[in-house]
């Protein structure tokens, strides 16, 4: 079983190595990765572009006085199991854990399909909708189960099949 790898090579100048009185802030971006597209994902370009944007804005004429070369961003890829090396247990374990019910529901690619499904309930705003909505949720749960084992070729088909369905 091959591991998924995400590559982040960022050419951010680490020229100021020793910060006096350093202050840090961390943001985390959760990635839901489509493993069928590629096992090796290179995000270098996106992150380089981000870094350039920040540095260009910071060093632009307006902000020039406040920008110093001791300010920098360092992006890195962190696997879930390595998070403990970054954050305290308190930060890491706060809140209840997320129960993943419908993977299909969550991704961007199926968003159009799910919104067309929900369209019947969205317009009339009446009372009888909840029942149809719960059944939709149940359907969604049922529908994802086969797709977990479904081959790659079926995935786009399942996405497009919802579009002609109103015709029936």
């Amino acid at each position, binding site marked *: 079983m091959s591991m998924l790898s995400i590559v982040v090579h960022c050419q951010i100048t*680490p020229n100021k190595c020793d910060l006096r009185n*350093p202050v840090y802030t*961390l943001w985390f971006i959760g*990635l839901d990765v489509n493993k069928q597209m590629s096992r090796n994902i290179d995000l270098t370009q*996106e992150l380089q572009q981000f870094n350039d944007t920040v540095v260009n804005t910071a060093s632009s004429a307006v902000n020039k006085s406040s920008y110093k070369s001791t300010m920098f961003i360092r992006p890195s890829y962190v696997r879930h199991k390595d998070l403990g090396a970054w954050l305290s247990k308190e930060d890491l374990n706060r809140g209840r854990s997320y129960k993943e019910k419908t993977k299909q529901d969550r991704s961007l690619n199926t968003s159009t399909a799910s919104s067309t499904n*929900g369209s019947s309930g969205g317009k009339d705003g009446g009372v009888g909708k909840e029942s149809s909505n719960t059944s939709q949720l149940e359907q969604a749960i049922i529908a994802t189960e086969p797709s977990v084992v479904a081959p790659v070729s079926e995935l786009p088909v399942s996405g497009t099949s919802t579009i002609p369905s109103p015709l029936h």
Partner: protein
Amino acid sequence: MSDLGLLKSPCHIYKSLHPTPDHGIYSNVLGFLGGVSWAILVARTCQLYPNAAPATLLEKFFLVFATWEWPHPVFLKDSDSQRADIPFLLDLVWDPRNRMSDRYHLMPIITPAFPEQNSTFNVTKSTRQVITNEFREGLDTMIRVRNGQAPFSQLFEEINFFSRYKHFLALLCATEGVEDHLVFASLVESKIRHLISSLERNSCMNLVHVNPRQYKPLPSVNIGTSHEYAEHCCPLPNNSQQM
């Protein structure tokens, strides 16, 4: 049934939606919804169900917006852009029929006073998806609350962000001193949504979700100021533009 009497007024609904920071979807600057947008959504629900009890309103809130067909705009009232006394503000009115750039807004939630504007300018495809997912979760929870299968408190529980995903990007922002940090960290935060929208254009990404909560790294974290870091990343002192 016992929990349904807890909410007293529509005002409470807005307040009760305020725990949404715990769900990681409350931040205008990062591309989620800010306070104004949330207030408009609550007001729209109250308009649709003027006589509903607050607990019902809360459920209908999730129902309406879990099934909303974005990018249909959320309006509280018809726009009355006939203000001849301040004509220079007319150009600011949100109107996708006349303004090309307004057609690309993904989740228009329009402010109800002249000049009417979209309060969710920063929303991207993936933040909209994250918000919609939360609406669906909320509706699901509310249905279970109504059937007595779950306590109301479940709706307000903080969800552990790190249990949602297996892969993360950590963005570390470092400066010298607190004053520098205030300036630089807010600049970095304001650009993160651009990173999100470029990451979501990558075909390998199903969903990109930035956590609005800011963290402090453990002191033991290799901050990247050591030579080990230099080995990983070849430094390009002056050639970054050639990239």
